[in-house]
């Protein structure tokens, strides 16, 4: 078993969720409650990674993060290291790719929060931000938990984008799914089988967990 790759996947997924959480929480509120121009566009943009082929994402990401792009150049200027083919580059790619997996369960859950409770908080003098962070978000905690679990799980499984911007470097960008691909291609079917089984068991556990959370949420409301 390629433990280095599995560890890297876990690290990458955890870091992705750590970045996704503030970003997702900030975006979820206007998407769930707001009424503003461009909401449909924002909804569509944040959902795009769900349906775009990973090759499209990978292509744009390698161009956008490469050393010839403004982002890539700024990064190299600041850190002296290259963004693509690095852990940080993969992390950025993962945040973009996994945003919808964080947003969708959270937005759905926030939409189900009883508006009257929010209005009460408001009339009692809570500011809008306080209403969101201290009333709505705690009430939607199952959605938040689903968001964390789903985006973590999807980050573990992400393949196409990682293949395209990673460069297959052991310990840095060779994640478990890339290692599995490598094993299959190099005829190491026994190794591939072990890695695949582990990923399969993980995915099953995650999906059963989120299904259970959803069923509890329905029972609660």
């Amino acid at each position: 078993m390629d433990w280095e790759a599995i560890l890297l996947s876990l690290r990458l997924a955890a870091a992705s969720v750590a970045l996704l959480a503030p970003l997702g929480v900030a975006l979820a509120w206007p998407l769930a409650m707001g009424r503003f121009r461009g909401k449909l566009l924002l909804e569509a943009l944040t959902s795009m990674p769900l349906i775009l082929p990973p090759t499209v994402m990978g292509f744009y990401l390698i161009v956008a993060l490469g050393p010839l792009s403004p982002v890539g150049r700024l990064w190299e200027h600041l850190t002296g290291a290259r963004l693509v083919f690095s852990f940080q580059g993969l992390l950025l790619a993962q945040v973009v790719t996994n945003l919808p997996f964080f947003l969708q369960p959270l937005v759905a859950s926030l939409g189900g929060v009883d508006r009257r409770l929010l209005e009460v908080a408001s009339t009692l003098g809570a500011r809008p931000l306080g209403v969101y962070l201290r009333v709505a978000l705690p009430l939607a905690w199952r959605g938040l938990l689903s968001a964390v679990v789903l985006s973590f799980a999807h980050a573990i499984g992400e393949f196409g984008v990682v293949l395209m911007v990673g460069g297959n470097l052991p310990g840095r960008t060779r994640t478990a799914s890339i290692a599995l691909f490598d094993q299959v291609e190099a005829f190491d079917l026994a190794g591939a089988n072990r890695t695949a089984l582990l990923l399969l068991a993980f995915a099953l556990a995650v999906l059963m967990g989120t299904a259970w959370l959803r069923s509890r949420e329905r029972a609660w409301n």
Partner: protein
Amino acid sequence: MNLRTLLAAALALVLAGGVPVRGAGVAIAAAGDLRGVLEALKTGFEGGHPGVQLQLTFGASGSLTAQIQQGAPFDVFLSADAGFPEQLRQAGLVTPEGPFPYATGKLILWVRQDLHLDPAREGLKVLLHPAVKKIATANPRLAPYGRAGEAALRAEHLFEAVQPKLVFGENILQAAQFLQTGAAEAGLISHAQAANPALAQTGVRWEVPAGAYPPIRQAGVILKRAASPDAAQAFRAYLIGPEGQAVLARHGFGRP
């Protein structure tokens, strides 16, 4: 038209899509370094064989071999080495005449022009230059050019020094794509990819001396399960015959 006729028509259309149209199709699985040259070969071959159509699929030789072992429906496999075709022969998947050599590949060092480095003078040592931050090549486990690149670096005792800079494409085409997008400044790739206009105009090319790496002897096989063996044989004859060899030579391949 009622719904049922509409559905039946749609179903018929979908099913018809799976049936070959006419004439013989030869499905060719080819190493990434053949992209470009194989399109030229296809034009030449189809011109002389009306009714036969070549369908081209490109990938790393190792990946394609794995797919063929799992029953991928290819008729001809053109590898970037001789080892993978031999593996398929031993697995009993190829026609009795066995692997046929069709070309020798050349390894090229490509360096971005604006770095103003001179590989013609310094050879592979330009890779040590700090302006070269990433070096792209193909995965040595899967792709013969990646293996040749690694061998050349080891022969020059540069491998340890440049290893932190190496990044690997899944095949030689992805390595070339890293160069084209600017993600890497230098690369060890195939002649055919380096000659691609997009790379030829933006970089300096240098042919790695043939003695620095084991020769990239490229061989092909016709698979036993070929749907139209005659057409596959005709393509093989064209490829190793004078016409095919002339096209290969024009694209920078050596004689087999």
